[in-house]
């Protein structure tokens, strides 16, 4: 390995390794150890029963849907906040962070109150045949709420530091506005946008507090995987609970890893 010009590599790697071990690896290995009390067939039946499979579909599907929605509207919101000056902009900017600060249970209760059949929105939506509370749609809405700040906050700084001369150059060279956006602005934003979407997705996969209120927790239909984990704990089935956790962890890691690779691959092409 080539020696870096920056001193202190050994020390900083050691400290980082220790911190990572204590904070991330230790709890995760505890999780693994707990599942080792299960036999392979026991593990398989714990993670492959129909209810568990239905819950993966909802957990990952709803998280993906909400991440895509956040990707689109988060980008738009970041764009508006950076590129335009309007009264109340500082307030909108501060509002974006609120989902971070609000306890998710409060978010879940509020959204449920809003979309239930006697709620402010629900009373107008349900006669139209649009059911939100206690359906997968409600789950997606709650996840979109908790994940929004991730996209805005990762895209915003990149957009702010984007060199305006690039856009001017594009315009001078005869590019249309759409071409400028598509060929100049978007490629430089893309890695940050992907990070934001990934963070928002990862946050959504693990979300529990807000979802238990709005989903209605119906087996096979609106049960998220974290709820099934709690259900198994409630039966003192620690091993069965951690088996589900391992599946979530493995799928999440695979997805996040793929996205990281995708991101690395997208960067040099446009650098």
């Amino acid at each position: 390995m080539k020696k870096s010009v920056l001193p202190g590599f050994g020390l900083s790697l050691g400290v980082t390794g220790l911190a990572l071990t204590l904070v991330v690896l230790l709890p995760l290995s505890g999780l693994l150890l707990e599942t080792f009390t299960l036999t392979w067939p026991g593990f398989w039946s714990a993670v492959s029963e129909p209810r568990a499979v239905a819950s993966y579909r909802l957990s990952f599907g709803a998280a993906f849907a909400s991440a895509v929605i956040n990707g689109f509207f988060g980008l738009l919101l970041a764009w508006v906040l950076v590129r335009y000056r309007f009264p109340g902009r500082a307030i909108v900017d501060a509002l974006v962070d609120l989902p971070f600060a609000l306890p998710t249970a409060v978010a879940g209760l509020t959204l449920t109150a809003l979309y239930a059949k006697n709620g402010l929105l629900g009373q107008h939506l349900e006669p139209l045949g649009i059911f939100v509370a206690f359906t997968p749609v409600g789950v997606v809405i709650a996840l979109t709420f908790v994940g929004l700040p991730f996209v805005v906050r990762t895209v915003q700084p990149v957009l702010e530091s984007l060199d305006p001369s690039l856009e001017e150059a594009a315009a001078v060279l005869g590019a249309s506005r759409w071409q400028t956006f598509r060929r100049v602005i978007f490629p430089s934003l893309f890695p940050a946008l992907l990070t934001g979407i990934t963070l928002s997705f990862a946050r959504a996969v693990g979300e529990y507090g807000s979802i238990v209120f709005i989903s209605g927790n119906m087996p096979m239909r609106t049960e998220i995987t974290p709820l099934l984990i709690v259900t198994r704990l409630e039966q003192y089935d620690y091993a069965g609970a951690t088996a589900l956790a391992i599946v979530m962890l493995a799928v999440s890691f695979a997805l996040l890893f793929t996205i990281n690779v995708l991101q690395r691959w997208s960067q040099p092409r446009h650098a």
Partner: protein
Amino acid sequence: MRALALLPLLLLAACSKESTVTLLNASYDPTRELYEEVNRAFAKRWLEKTGQTVVINQSHGGSGKQARAVIDGLEADLVTLALGWDIDAVASKGKLLPENWATRLPRNSAPFASTIVFVVRKGNPRGIHDWEDLAKPGVQVITPNPKTSGGARWNYLAAYGAAQRKPGGDDAQAKQLMAGLFANVPVLDAGARGSTTTFAERGLGDVLIAWENEALLLLNGASKDTFEVVVPSLSILAETPVALVDQVVDRRGTRTVAEAYLKFLYSDEGQALASKHGFRPTGVATLEPKFAKVSTFTIAEGFGGWATAQRVHFDDRGLFDQLYAVKK
């Protein structure tokens, strides 16, 4: 403000360390107000009797969650939970008290109990009178998820046992009732308070299956003109047991005061407080008139105890799971 008010107490505690003892009571959610008052009353009696100040800290949460916290090391001297199954787990998984804990105090270690009743909207528009009415098509029933809520398990067992034990009833009829009943449940909240909110605040459902003490609380509140209570012909006696945690009290040297505390729950004063907060005292000949007359069966009579009930009905692939497995 609160901190300032506590200051003299803390100073007092610091001066007389010898004569102050603390207890931690791990309980479930709806007992908050009850134990607040019980703790005050017991502290007064204990001070009179021994000259020792006792401070009782309360921890509340879902019954199963509390049991797990104690198993995982929460130093609770006392467990006062929603079902015996959860204290059984503290005994069998945590080895923190002997497995025969329930026999150590009178009446299965349950100084008070509750039962399961229906709450319907004022005037009872859907004509709900007994368990069969909950399985009728078009009736919406609100009850929490028995997999996550202790109260919901009582609800489920009350319905099942009532159908099984009524004249001419049997297991097949009970299963049929449960299938019809749960087909009518639009939302399975994680806990009993969640279901109450869904029914009372969200306006969902025609009938809420609930603890009698929660129903009485709902009717005492601002919403007494919106709801009424319907008592089924037959229901379960939901025994909510209490126990001291041997490993903890012996380590902390609090056995004497913990035993006195549990005994206080059985005293006339403790029983009266339970009654005041909507729990049925088990040692009183005539109950206050606010408790409706209802014939009840116990979990031992109906299901041969918690271990069997849990295994047959609520474990994975048990009868409750089968209700949902068929309608994919």
